[in-house]
C-alpha cells in the first residue's frame, strides 16, 4: 500500500540522519540523553510537538526556558546520595507543580500550597529538594490537575546512578546482575489531540478528561518513525530524545521502561525475552547480597502508568539450528557471540566414552532434558575453529552435571579429551535450513539486508532495503496493542522502534 512507501521514505530520511550521527564525531547516541548535576531550573510553558504524519500538537512542556520546553521533560541523570535542587518556574495559565515518586526527603519552598505539593505560578517559582537515595529508574510529573497536566506533557524521567558508578563498567544498581553494555530509555505515553486543541483554544470547560481517547502513542516523546531519527534532530526542536537501540550479539542491553501515560501499554520486544531485574527503582531481590534473584523474564512488559521497569535484554542467536553468520565449515572463524554457552570437562574423556561430566560457568545453562549440538576443543586453543581436532557431539543431561554424549558427528572423529577442555553449545558451521523464494515472490522490508546472515549483504532489487548498511538483524520493539502503532489514523507509527543487532565490526556510538 502507498502508506508503506511514505513510511519507508520517512524511515530513509530518519536513518540517514542517524547514520550520519553514528559515523561522525560527536556526542554519543547510544546512551540515554539527559542532563546531569545537582541543581536544575525547569520552566513549564506551552509549545508544539510534531507528529510524523504532519500534525502539530499544542502541549505543555518543561525545559530550560520558555522557548525550549520539550516532550517529555528533561531526563535528569543523578547520582545516588546527592541532594537535588529543582526550581520550577511557570508560564502556564494554571498552577503547576512537580512530584518525585521514589525519591526521599522531598521538600518544597515558595509558590503557593496546592493539594499535593507547593505550586508555581508566573512570577512565583517553587524550589523542590530531595535526596536521590536509591539508584534506579524513576518518573517525575506534575502534582497539579494531573488529569489534564499529564496529558499535556508535564512529566519526565529520572535516572539515579549507583554509588561508585563507573561509565566504563556500568551497572544499574551496583550489582553484577545489573551490569550492562548499553542502556536505552523507553518512556511510553499517549495523547488525545482533541484535548490539546481545547486547551490551545482556551476552551477548558469543554474538556472531559474521563473521556480521553488517545490516537497518538509515543516512545520518549516521539512517534515512529521519528523514534529512530537522531536525538536532538533540528526538525524536532521540542522532542529531543530518540529511541534507537543498537547492540552487538552477546551484549547486555539495559531497558529502562517507564509507563508515562494514562493507559497500560504491553511493550513487546522481538528477538528474545528480557529479564526484569527491578521495578520502581528497587532491585527485585529477596535480601542484601542476593542480587535480582526474584527477577523474571518476559517477552512483553506491561508498562503501567507511573511504573518503571529495568530489564536486561541479551541476544546470542543461541540454538537457532543454523549458523547465522553463514559459515559452512567448522574451520571458518568463530565470531563473537557464536559460542552462546561454554562449559568445561570436569574429567578426562576417552575416545570411547559415552558419558561426560561438565562444569564451569555454562553447565547450569545446558537444557535439562534435551539433546544439544556442541563442539569440543582443546583448552590449548581459544576457540574451536583453531583446533583442527575439534569434535562435533550431541550431549544430553542424564542427571546433575553428568551428560550422555553422541560422539564424532558431522565428519569429525571421536577423540580423547583432557580435563578443562571446552564444550560449547553452538550451531557453528551448520547450513541454512531452507531455500528462500525468488525475489519476485517477495516483498522486501527496508531493514532487510538481502541476506539471512548477520553482516552479510545480499542482492536486493533496485530500490529495496537501504536502511541496514551494516547488514544487521532488526527487531521491532513496540506496543502490542497494535492500535497504538498509529499516528492518528495513519499506520504505521506510534509507540514503536526497531532494535538493531549489528555485527561486531559495525560501530555503535
Amino acid at each position, binding site marked *: 500500500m502507498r502508506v508503506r512507501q511514505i513510511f519507508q521514505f520517512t524511515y530513509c530520511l530518519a536513518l540517514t540522519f542517524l547514520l550520519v550521527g553514528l559515523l561522525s564525531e560527536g556526542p554519543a547516541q547510544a546512551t540515554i540523553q539527559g542532563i546531569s548535576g545537582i541543581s536544575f531550573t525547569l520552566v513549564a510553558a506551552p509549545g508544539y510537538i510534531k507528529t510524523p504524519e504532519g500534525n502539530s500538537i499544542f502541549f505543555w512542556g518543561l525545559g530550560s526556558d520558555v522557548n525550549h520546553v520539550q516532550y517529555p521533560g528533561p531526563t535528569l541523570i543523578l547520582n545516588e546520595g546527592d541532594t537535588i535542587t529543582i526550581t520550577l518556574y511557570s508560564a502556564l495559565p494554571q498552577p503547576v507543580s512537580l512530584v518525585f515518586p521514589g525519591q526521599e526527603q522531598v521538600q518544597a519552598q515558595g509558590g503557593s500550597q496546592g493539594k499535593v505539593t507547593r505550586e508555581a505560578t508566573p512570577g512565583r517559582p517553587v524550589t523542590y529538594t530531595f535526596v536521590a537515595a536509591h539508584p534506579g529508574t524513576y518518573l517525575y510529573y506534575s502534582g497539579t490537575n494531573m488529569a489534564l497536566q499529564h496529558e499535556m506533557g508535564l512529566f519526565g524521567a529520572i535516572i539515579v546512578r549507583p554509588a561508585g558508578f563507573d561509565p566504563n563498567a556500568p551497572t544499574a544498581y551496583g550489582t553484577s546482575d545489573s551490569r550492562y553494555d548499553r542502556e536505552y530509555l523507553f518512556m511510553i505515553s499517549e495523547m488525545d489531540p482533541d484535548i490539546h486543541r481545547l486547551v490551545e483554544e482556551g476552551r477548558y470547560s469543554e474538556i472531559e478528561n474521563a473521556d480521553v481517547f488517545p490516537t497518538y502513542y509515543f516512545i520518549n516523546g516521539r512517534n515512529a518513525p521519528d523514534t529512530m531519527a537522531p536525538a536532538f534532530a533540528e526538525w524536532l526542536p521540542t522532542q529531543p530524545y530518540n529511541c534507537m537501540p543498537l547492540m552487538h550479539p552477546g551484549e547486555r542491553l539495559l531497558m529502562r521502561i517507564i509507563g508515562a501515560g494514562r493507559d497500560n501499554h504491553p511493550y513487546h520486544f522481538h*528477538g528474545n525475552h528480557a529479564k526484569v531485574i527491578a521495578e520502581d527503582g528497587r532491585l527485585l531481590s529477596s535480601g542484601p547480597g542476593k542480587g535480582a534473584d526474584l527477577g523474571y523474564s518476559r517477552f512483553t512488559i506491561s508498562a503501567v502508568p507511573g511504573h518503571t521497569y529495568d530489564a536486561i535484554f541479551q541476544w546470542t*542467536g543461541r540454538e*537457532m539450528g543454523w549458523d547465522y553468520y553463514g559459515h559452512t565449515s567448522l574451520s571458518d572463524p568463530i565470531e563473537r557471540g557464536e559460542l552462546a554457552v561454554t562449559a568445561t570437562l570436569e574429567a578426562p574423556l576417552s575416545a570411547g566414552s559415552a558419558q561426560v561430566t561438565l562444569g564451569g560457568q555454562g553447565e547450569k545453562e545446558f537444557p535439562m532434558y534435551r539433546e544439544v549440538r556442541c563442539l569440543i576443543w582443546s583448552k590449548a586453543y581459544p576457540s574451536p575453529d583453531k583446533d583442527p581436532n575439534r569434535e562435533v557431539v550431541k550431549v544430553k543431561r542424564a542427571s546433575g552435571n553428568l551428560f550422555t554424549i553422541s560422539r564424532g558427528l558431522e565428519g569429525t572423529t571421536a577423540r580423547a579429551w583432557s580435563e578443562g577442555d571446552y564444550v560449547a553449545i553452538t550451531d557453528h558451521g551448520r547450513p541454512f535450513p*531452507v531455500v528462500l523464494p525468488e525475489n519476485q515472490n*517477495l516483498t522486501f522490508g527496508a531493514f532487510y539486508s538481502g541476506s539471512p546472515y548477520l553482516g552479510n549483504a545480499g542482492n536486493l532489487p533496485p530500490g529495496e532495503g537501504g536502511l541496514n548498511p551494516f547488514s544487521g538483524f532488526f527487531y*521491532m520493539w513496540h506496543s*502490542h*496493542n497494535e492500535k497504538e502503532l498509529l499516528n492518528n*489514523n495513519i499506520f504505521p507509527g506510534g509507540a514503536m522502534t*526497531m532494535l538493531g543487532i549489528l555485527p561486531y565490526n559495525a560501530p555503535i556510538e
Partner: protein
Amino acid sequence: MKRDLLLFLAVTAFSLLSLTGAWGGVMVQCPEDLDGDGVSDVDLPHVVCRHLTGGDGFTVMADGRSMYIFGFGDVTGMPADQVLESGILGAQFPAPTIVLDEGDDFYLTLTNVGMLMRPDLFDPHTVHFHGFPEVASIFDGLPESSVGINMGSSITYYYHIAVPGTFMYHCHAEATEHMQMGMLGNLYVRPAQNSLPDGTDLKGFIHHTGYKYAYNDGDGSTRYDVEYAIQMSSFDPEFHDADLNVQPLPFADMRDKYALLNGRGYPDTVLQGPILNKVNGRNSQPLDSLVHARQGQRILLRLSNLSVTRYYTLSIGGLYMKVIAKDAKLLQASDGRPMSYDTTTVTLGGGESVDVIIDTAGVPPGTYVMYATQAQYLSNNEEDYGGMMTEIVIE
C-alpha cells in the same frame, strides 16, 4: 453466484500465473518429502512440517452477524494443486493451532492465496512466532526487517524449537490491519520433561510415562491431565465492514465490540461442533473453548491475548487458578524456589501469555464460568449475555 465466479477466476488466474513462472506457485519445503505434499515420507523424529495459507474468509459472530476476516488456513499434507482452491476464502479464526515439542525442527510453509474479496489489495503475509527467543530476522516474520510472501507464492520458515512454553503467532504485515482482521493463532511447545524415562525421580516426584508437564519444572509441579489453549481477541465490526467494502479503515477510531475466546463469543464458545459461515458455508471457527475435566484432574489453561486494542482480565467463578508461568517462562526464583501463586484473575495485554493450572481435587462437580471481569465485554456487540465467556465443566 458472483462469489463462485470470482473464486473460479482467482484460482484460474493464480494457476496460470504459476505456470508462467512469473509467480513462484505453491512450494512446500519439508525434509524427506518425496511426493511434494509437504510432509515427511520417512519417519524423522523431531521434524514437524506444517503448511498454512494466508488469505481471507468469513466468520459469524455469536449474535449472527457475518464478519469478514483475513486469516490463515491449514493445508498441511494437501497436494500442491489443491492448495489455492482450499485456501481461497478458507481463512480460519483463530488460525490453526500449532503444537510442538521441545527439540523439534519446525518447517512452516506459508502460501499467500490472496484476498478474494479485496482484489485491489496485493498484501504480502508473514508468520510472526510471537515470543520465540533468539530467532533470526529472516524467520521473525517482521516485514520491515525481512520479507513478506506475495500472492500466489510460498515461503518456508524454519525454527529450532529450543524452549517450551505458551507462545502465539500472527501475521505481522501491516500488523494493525491484518491482526484486527483476524490473522492470530494459538501456538505452544510441550517440554522435553514429558519424555523422561519411566520412574525418573524429580526431587521426590516420580515421573511415569504418559505424565505431561507444562514446563521443565524439575519437580513435577506443572504436571497436568488436560490442557486447553484459549486465546483472547476482539473485533471491531466497523473496521471489518470497512475492509470488506473497500472503505478507508477507521484505525484511530477502532473500538472492539466483540470480545472473543478462540474466535467465538458466548454462547458459541461452549458450542461443540462447527459454526458454518453464511457466505461459503466453511467451518471457519472450528475451536470451541469448553473446558472438560473429571474431578481430581489438573487442568492446564494456556491463555494468551492478541487483541489489538485492549487488556482483558479473566476470572473463574468458584475456582482458583495457580499461575505457573508468564510469557512462556516458569515462575521461579533464580535459586529454583517456585514463585507461582493462586489467584482468581489473570490480566493480559496484547502479546502476553500466562499458564495456569486448576487443581480440581475436592472441587464439586458442576459447571463453572470463566469470564472477562470487565463486564462490559460480556456482550456480542449489542446483544447481552455473551462476549468473552466460556464454561468449565467438572464431572
